């Protein structure tokens, strides 16, 4: 996957969980939880969306590594085939 494709997939997944989110103005280093008002259930749903779009499955032990938009995008980039 290209960086653009991954970026799109991440945006699409967040959009599905937080439809009102404006990704153009969000600080990529703000925590997703705060930026998009995402709770633990939303987070699992977000990862599910992402899995469907990119094939990347995030184990629970890696949750702490993907707290921000930048981290999440980087994680998918590193694990996508």
């Amino acid at each position, binding site marked *: 996957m290209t960086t653009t494709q991954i970026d799109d997939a991440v945006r699409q997944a967040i959009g599905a969980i937080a*439809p009102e989110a404006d990704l153009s103005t969000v600080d990529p280093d703000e925590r997703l*939880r705060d930026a998009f*008002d995402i709770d*633990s*259930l939303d987070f*699992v*749903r977000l990862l599910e969306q992402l899995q469907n779009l990119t094939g990347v499955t995030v184990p*629970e032990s890696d949750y702490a590594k993907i707290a921000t938009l930048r981290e999440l995008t980087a994680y998918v980039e590193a694990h996508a085939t």
Partner: protein
Amino acid sequence: MPEFAMPSLGADMDEGTLLEWLVKPGDVVHRGDVVAVVDTAKAAMDVEIFQDGVIEKLIAEPGTTLPVGAPLAVIGGEGAAATPEAPAAVRVPTLAPPSGTGLLVESPLVRHRARKLGVDLADVVGTGPGGVITRADVDAHAAAAPQVKPKRRPPVAIPAQARPPVSPFARRRAAELGVDLGVVQGSGPGGAIIAVDVERAAARPTPVAAEPGAPQREPAAPVAPDMQAKARAMRKAIGQLMARSKREIPHYYLSTTIDLTVATDWLHQANLDRPLSSRLVPAVLLLKASARAIRDVPEMNGFWLDDEFVPGPGVHLGVAISLRQGGLIAPAIHHADNLTLDELMEHLRDLVSRARAGRLKQSEMDPTITVTNLGDQGVDSVHGVIYPPQVALVGFGKVAERPWADGGMLGVRTCVTATLAADHRASDGHRGGLYLAAIDSLLRKPEEL
């Protein structure tokens, strides 16, 4: 002829707006079928019917706002299925329950309600699952009783903003007298409806007719409210219910910090082999423990009605769900104490997504105790406000590592602060403490949850 009435979809609901019919006259309906969508101040909800029959006539037009208990449709009985063409006028009203069969009553709550409203249950037609009599049936029967003819009345549209305040006592009197508050003219401060207004209205021969010249009654059909109006209506509904809670319920508050290390370790282990779609979140453990602990301290589960505690018919665990557009709603997961963690997780996911999509079901609005989990927002603890007429609310803060002293040693443990807000009329702090202790002890053995 049985009527299908505007249901009460929560203690804070006085009226609802019929959004759409999912059935038409002549349709055969069965218990549990979703027949309409009703919008409340909080959310649009799927409304189920609790009897078998044929839709005889749709009374209410989509877009109209009607008080709880107002007739929405006329349902023909089983016999009607064979002759859907027969005019309604020639059919014998079938108000009596099948003779010989014992009365089916859903819960002690319903019996209590009937006693309070002076309703003889033998006269009430049960529309609940299996023909059981529900609270709504009792209310509908009580509301219909003082009318000379149980004929349909013209829907009265009441703009939400124009509704005068109603004193709690007036509300109770209205329920006792079967008076529709929508047609009562208030004489209290600011046009508030007080008990004497209700009694006056009850004495009038035609309680359904709107007083001419009553300024707050505009027959204009309400238009679809915009998001802002919707948000205002929700804030108002929450405000009224919470104000009532603080006014009427003598809350007491307890809090305890629970060591969740064993539980979270167990959870991580359990999640290792699971696909994303079936992973458990810590909240599920907290919900399950809260539900199971009721077995030890049942007086936390139920309602305070007319100066006495009425136990819940099961542990219907209300889950406070914040809505993305603001506000919150607390639908119930039925018999949560009997569900496995996987089942509970599935119910929770389903409930949250439907609550946010505005598609909850009427049958889900009957929690017997509520849990609020604000841990994801990062707060340490939450001291909640009880949802009347419930008697307890459990709160959980964030799950986080804390310094923890045990046996003379200091260590780092994963902890959560659990709180209990409970109704002092129904229980004392001692019992409340036992309830929190039961939650604590259950969370130490997650494999048994």
